[in-house]
């Protein structure tokens, strides 16, 4: 658990993070979203002491981080940034092994861990281990950056616009990877982005920031249905609200009995995808397929209800 308690950061009188308090539950994903210069990065960097707060406290699992030496704290917290920050003079393997090495793991354990992580990110260890970062594509570099952040099995992973430089396809893939890895390891993730779509997709909770202030900290459904200020509403995009709401749920959770013909949709698809398919094919209902067999249908009427503003 990360407790941010009335934290403020000022640079020469200019307040860039203004009395922010929020509690991030263990094993959850918290996305900090806001426009450029709203203080997202600064807030996140105070968690691993890359920035010293002007006032306030941050506690991790109850312990005030002011009591922990910075280098020790950082070795316990994964840190992945936009532009990956890989060490250009060290191989992919050496990059991933950075923190285990700092922690004094033995060679065998480190090497095994490096291979495990590279495989997890679909990078064949034999092929990629000894390459230098500049010999990788941007997407591969980004994955190595996250692999390095996770190498020592940290409980907390901080990510600052990790997907900012990726194309939409690779980006979607990287987001799915993050979700599955987060579930697998139970890592607490704090992710900074200025993309509301990404925030809604990834976040268990979303913190919206503007001009250093925390405007709202809530579940995505809540933020969409009841934005705390006009600014939050604007960030979500008024005309996007019903679709964003639909994007939060899966077809699997809204299957109705009944049989219809035509091309089926997978149960794992989002309601938004189902809605788009219904509109596009001009059908009132789609058969739903799970593990290769049809298990029911999803209807336009139902989705229209679900897309309406929650009461």
């Amino acid at each position, binding site marked *: 658990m990360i407790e941010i308690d009335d934290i403020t950061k000022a640079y020469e009188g200019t307040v860039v993070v203004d009395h922010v308090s929020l509690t991030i539950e263990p094993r959850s994903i918290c996305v900090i979203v806001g426009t450029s210069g709203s203080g997202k990065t600064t807030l996140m960097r105070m968690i691993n002491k*890359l920035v010293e707060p002007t006032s306030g406290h941050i506690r991790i699992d109850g312990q005030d981080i002011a009591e922990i030496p910075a*280098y020790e704290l950082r070795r*316990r917290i994964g*840190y992945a940034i*936009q532009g990956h*920050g890989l*060490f*250009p*003079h060290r191989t992919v393997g050496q990059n991933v092994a950075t923190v285990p090495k700092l922690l004094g793991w033995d060679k065998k354990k480190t090497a095994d861990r490096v291979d495990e992580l590279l495989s997890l990110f679909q990078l064949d260890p034999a092929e990629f281990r000894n390459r230098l970062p500049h010999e990788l594509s941007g997407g591969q570099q980004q994955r190595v950056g996250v692999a390095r952040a996770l190498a020592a099995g940290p409980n907390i992973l901080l990510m600052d616009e990790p997907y900012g430089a990726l194309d939409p396809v690779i980006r979607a893939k990287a987001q799915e990877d993050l979700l599955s890895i987060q579930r697998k390891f139970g890592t607490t993730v704090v992710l900074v982005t200025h993309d509301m779509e990404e925030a809604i997709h990834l976040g268990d909770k979303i913190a919206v920031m503007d001009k250093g202030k925390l405007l709202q900290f809530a579940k995505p459904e809540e933020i969409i249905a009841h934005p705390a200020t006009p600014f939050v509403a604007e960030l979500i995009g008024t005309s996007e609200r019903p679709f964003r709401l639909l994007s939060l749920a899966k077809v699997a959770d809204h299957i109705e009995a009944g049989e219809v013909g035509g091309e089926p949709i997978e149960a794992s698809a989002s309601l938004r995808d189902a809605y788009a398919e219904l509109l596009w094919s001009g059908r009132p209902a789609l058969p739903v397929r799970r593990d290769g067999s049809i298990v029911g249908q999803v209807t336009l009427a139902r989705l229209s209800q679900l897309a309406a503003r929650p009461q």
Partner: protein
Amino acid sequence: MKIGNLIRLVIFGLLLVFLIQPELFAGFFGLFTKNNQPAIYNQGSLLDITLNHLGIVAAATLASTIIAVGLAIVVTRPFGAEFLPLSRSLANIGQTFPPVAVLALAVPMLGFGTAPTLVALFLYGLLPIFENTLTGLTNLPPAVTDAAKGVGMSGWQRLIKVELPLALPVILAGVRLSVVISLATATIGSTVAARTLGEVIIAGLLSSNTAFVLQGGLIVGVLAVLIYDALSALERFLMKRTGQLGRA
């Protein structure tokens, strides 16, 4: 092998042969003599003098490298940061000082011989290396230095494992500059009785023997070009290895 490297190899070979068996070139240098003057320098072994010249340059450069890199490291650490602007301007002022002036100032303090030459070369060699090390250490890619902090490296670990290796090509460029300046400046050292190739040139000037002047000058020039090229190649290799080619 590229044509440029082939030419360098041939020139290096010729230089070696000339230093070991200068008489083989007597015919060529004879063209520049008058009145039966000796064609080849005859007041000492050219090989010995060249090695001594190189030795002085190497010793001075090594000392400047250690001190200049050390100083640049100190002023780029948090505890030395307040000296950064001061040391920068000192380095810039120092650079405008001609090497001959440094030599002239060193003699009254150290007397004649190798010592004042070493000191002059050492002092003048400091500046390019210091300046380049500063540039190298302060212009690192911000994402990389940020990541080095973020993974929990101590200040010392960041310096050794990340900052110095990445700054190395730029530091090396400073060393290269310093070596080439020292190679030339060392010849002036023989005016204060250091045993360098300047001795050959001065002997030629005193006896109006163009062949001697040419020999001394050629050896210094060829050495400078070869060493310059070798260090440039090493820099390029290091830049390429770290994917920095085109960055600095």
